[in-house]
C-alpha cells in the first residue's frame, strides 16, 4: 500500500513497484489532468511538482513518493479561484489544444514561486523541457510574465 499526498490530500493506493507516478495519478487516483506525450522524459507533458520541484511523473517510481507532496494541475486552483498563472494562460490564449498546458503551468509555478520577477529569458529557460506544438511559446511566455506581475501586485 502506497501512501502519498497529492494536492494536499492524503491517498492510500495499491501500486506495483513498476508503476510510475504518471500511471498512479491517471489510473489509480483518476487525476487525468496530468498528460503524457512520450513516457520517456522527453516532452514535459507529464510534469508535476514533487515537493515544489518540477519532475517528470513518467520517470518517478512509487518509492520516491513516500512522504512527498505532489502537486498536479488539479491542485493549482483554490476552490473556484484560479491561480494567477491559470488566469493569465486563459487571458492570453496560452492554452490552445491544451495538452501541454498542465506541464507548462507546473513548470511555470515552480519558477514563479522561487523567482517572483523572472526575465523573459528565465521564463523561457524554465519551460525549456516542455514541448508545445501549438503556440510557438510566445503567448505562454507572455502569460507567465503577466502572472508574475499580478502576483507581485497582490503581495
Amino acid at each position, binding site marked *: 500500500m502506497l501512501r502519498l499526498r497529492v494536492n494536499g490530500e492524503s491517498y492510500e493506493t495499491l501500486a506495483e513497484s513498476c508503476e510510475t507516478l504518471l500511471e498512479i495519478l491517471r489510473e489509480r487516483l483518476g487525476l487525468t*489532468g496530468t498528460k503524457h*506525450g*512520450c513516457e520517456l522524459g522527453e*516532452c514535459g507533458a507529464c510534469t508535476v511538482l514533487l515537493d515544489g520541484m518540477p519532475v517528470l511523473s513518467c520517470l518517478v517510481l512509487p518509492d520516491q513518493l513516500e512522504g512527498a507532496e505532489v502537486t498536479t*494541475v*488539479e491542485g493549482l486552483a483554490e476552490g473556484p479561484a484560479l491561480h494567477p498563472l491559470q488566469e493569465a494562460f486563459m487571458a492570453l490564449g496560452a492554452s490552445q*489544444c491544451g*495538452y501541454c498546458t498542465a506541464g507548462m503551468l507546473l513548470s511555470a509555478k515552480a519558477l514563479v514561486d522561487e523567482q517572483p520577477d523572472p526575465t523573459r529569458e528565465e521564463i523561457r529557460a524554465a519551460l525549456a523541457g516542455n514541448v508545445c506544438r501549438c503556440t510557438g511559446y510566445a503567448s505562454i511566455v507572455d502569460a507567465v510574465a503577466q502572472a508574475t506581475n499580478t502576483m507581485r501586485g497582490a503581495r
Partner: protein
Amino acid sequence: MSAPRGGANGRLASESATIESATIESATIESAGGALRVVGKAMPRVDAVSKVTGRTVYADDLTFPGTIHCVLLRSPHPHARIRGVDVREAAGVPGVVAVLTGAAMPTRFGVSPSSEEEQALATEKVRYVGEPVAAVAARDEATAREACKKIHVDYELLEPVTSIDQALEVPMDEPIHAASKDSNIHRLAALEFGDVEEGFAASDHVREDVFFYEGSTHLAMEEHSATATFADGQLTVWSSTQSPHNVHRALSSVLGLPMGHVRVVATPHGGGFGGKVDPCAHEIVIAKLAMTTGRPVKCTLTREEVFYNHRGRHPVLMWVRTGVTRDGRIRAMHFRTALDGGAHGSLGAATTYYTGALQPATYDLPAYRFEGCRVFTNKAPCGPKRGHGTPQPRFALELHLDKLAEDLGMDPVELRRRNYVRPNSRTVNGLRITSCAIENVTAEVLAASGYSRRRRRDGHGQGFAVSAYLCGAGSPMYLNRMPHSEVNIEVGRGGVTVLCGATDIGQGSDSVLATLVAEELGLEREDVRLVTGDTGLTPVDLGSYSSRVTFMAGNAAIEAARKMRATLVAAAAERSGAQPTEMTVAGGKIGPLSFEEAVVAAEELYGSLGSGGSYAPPPDISGSKYRGSAVGPSPAFSFSAAVVDLDADRVTGEVRVNKVWIAHDIGRALNPLLVRGQVEGGVYMGLGEALMEAQVYRNGLLHHPSVLEYKTPLSTDMPEIEHLLVEQPDPEGPYGAKEVGQGPLLPVVPAVVSAIHDALGIWVDEVPVTPEKVLRALDSRAKGGDPRTGPRAFPMIPYPPCVKVAPPDAASAAL
C-alpha cells in the same frame, strides 16, 4: 462600427486601409444588425477554464467500466509478403480477450476514394515498418503488449523502395502496390494553362532552379487514442480525430455497418496539424474488437506508433523554370514536382495537385505548366500536414524569385510586387480571387521590420517572402453535392444549443461558433451551449482540415442563427405589438422582451424551435473542369508576408533567428486572441521545418521516432514574433473572416533561407537548413565553386502530355 482590435502582441494594420472595400463592409455589418458586440473581441477560448484546470477529458482520459485494452502488432519490415499469421500462442496468454488479424476485415479504405489501398490490418503484404498486422485486446495494456510479442508472422522479404529515384525505376521484386505495374509511380499530373512556350519565347531572361523540401511530421503532443463500444446494435467510437466524418465513413465501409448504426465522437483534441485527418487503423480495429467482444475497447498509440502512422509532410523535389521580361514581369512558368509519398495514398493525390495549384494564386502568371508526380516508397505514408502540399512549392518559388531578382539586379520585393495577383480576378488556372490584401501584408511587414533599411553586418540578414492559402477546399474529398458544413440551433427551455460536426482541435472552432451565434442572437458566448464533432448528434461538417472551419461552419452557423433570430423577432413582435423591423437584437433582449420571454412566446406560437444553416462553396470558384481542377479552388484566399531576421555563423554554420515579423490577411479577426495563437503557431512550425524538423529514414527504418531525436524548437530556441493583422473583410467570409490556421506557416520557410542568403551570400536550396549545409555552401564558394547546397538535378519522369486548359478570357479574368 466598432473597429476590431489586434491581439495582445499585434496591432491592427492601417485602419483606414481596412475600409477600402467599404461597400462589402457596410453590407456585412448591416446584415449583422449594427455594432458588433462579440465578434472581434479578444476573448479566452470558450473551454479555457477546463483546459487550464486539467478538467478537459481527452480521448485517453476516457475509460468506460469493463474496458479492455488493445495493442497493435506492427511490421518490422519495410516491404514483405505475409505468408501467415499464427496467433495461437498470443490468444492463450492469460488476460488476453481477443486477437485479431486482417482476415476479419479485409475491406480496403483510405481517406480519399481515389486511394483506397489500406487495410486496418494488412493481409497480403506489409509496405512500411510500423504497418499494423495484428491486434490483441487484453484486460490491461501491458498484457496486450506482451501478448503481441507472441504473435508469429511469417514474412517473405521483398526489396524495399526507399527513394524517389528508386521508385521511378522498374521494381527489383515487385511494385509496392500492384496497380503501379512497372514502376512505383502513384500519380502523374500534367497541366498547361496558356501557352508556356510562347511565354518563354517572349521572355528576356529565363532561369531554372532545383529545390528539395524534406518531409516532416506533425508531432501533436497528444498521442492518438480511441475507445469503441458496441451496444444494442450501435457502434460508438470516441477518438482524437480531426474529422469524425472521415472515421464515420471508413468504419461504415470496412465493418459493413449502415452509417446510421455508427456514431463517431471527436473528443477534445491534443493537437492535429493534419495528423488526425485520415481514418486510422486503430480506430477500425477497436471498433471490430468491440463488436466481437461486446466490451469497450481502447487503444492509445505510443509516440513511436504515432511516428509510423505519420500522414505528414511529403518530401518534395522541385524544378522550376521561369521567364521574365527585363522589367521583372513573369511571362511563363514551368513547375515540376516529385513527391515521396510513402507506402499509401492517403490524401496524396490531392497533395500532388496542391504542389502546383497555388503558385498562380500569389503571382499573376500569364502562362503556367505544372507537372507533378507522386511515388510510393516503403516508408510511413505521407499525407496532409499544415499547409498541405503548398509549403514545399512556396519554398521553391519564393527563393527562385529571389534569384531571378538577383539576375535582373532588381529588388526582390519589387519583382514580386510587379507580379502580384489582384483582388477580384481569376488566375490562369481558373481560381477565383476575391478579397486579396497581398499588397497590404507586404507593406505592413516591410514597415514593421525595416527590411529595406536593414543594416548589413557580417552574418546578419533578413529575408522576405509572401504566400497564399485556401479558406477551405472548394471540393469535398468524395464527390457529392451536399453541404460541406451544417449547423442546427435548438432553442427552448434548456437555452440555446448549437450543434455542428466541426471539430475543435485546439484552433478554437468551438469558440468561433459560439461567437457568431452569440453575436447574431444578441447573447454572450456563455449563453451558447455547444455540441460539436459528434456524427450521432450533430449535422455534418467535413472536418478540421484545409483551414475550412471558420469559413464554412461559420457561415452555416450565421445562417442558422439568422433564421432563429427571425423566428424570435416575429414572436416578440406578435407578443409585444412592435414592428419586427424596429426590433433590436442585443444585450440579451429581442426588442422589448428578454431573450427568455421571446423564446417562451415563440414556443407558444410555433412549438419546438429549431433552425438549420448549411454551407457549400459557390460554384463559380473554379474555372474550367479538368482532372485535378478540384484542387485549388476555395471560396477565399488569405495572404501572408513574413520577414525573418537572423544571424548565421560562418564558422559553425549555426543559424539563430532573432525575430520574425508576420503580416496576415485575416479578413476579419473574429477573436484576435485565437488569431494570434494560429499566426504564432504557424510561424513556429515554419521555423521548425526550416531549421530542424525531418522525418528521415535509413534503409526503410525511421531514423528517430522520438520526441528527443525528432528535433523541434524549444522555448529557448524561439525568437520573438511580431504579428500584424490586416483586416479587409472578405465579402463571403463570416463577418468577413478568412483562414489563419495554415497560411502564416508558408512564407516563414523561404524567408529563413532568404535571410541566410542575405547574411552569408550563399543559397541553401533544401530544408531543413542544418549547420553542415551552411558550411558546405560556404566551403564550396571558398573553393571557387557554386555558393550553394541543394539538389543538383531533377529526375526524368514519364509525365503524360499536358492537358491544355484555356486560360480564362479577359472578361472573366477581371471579376
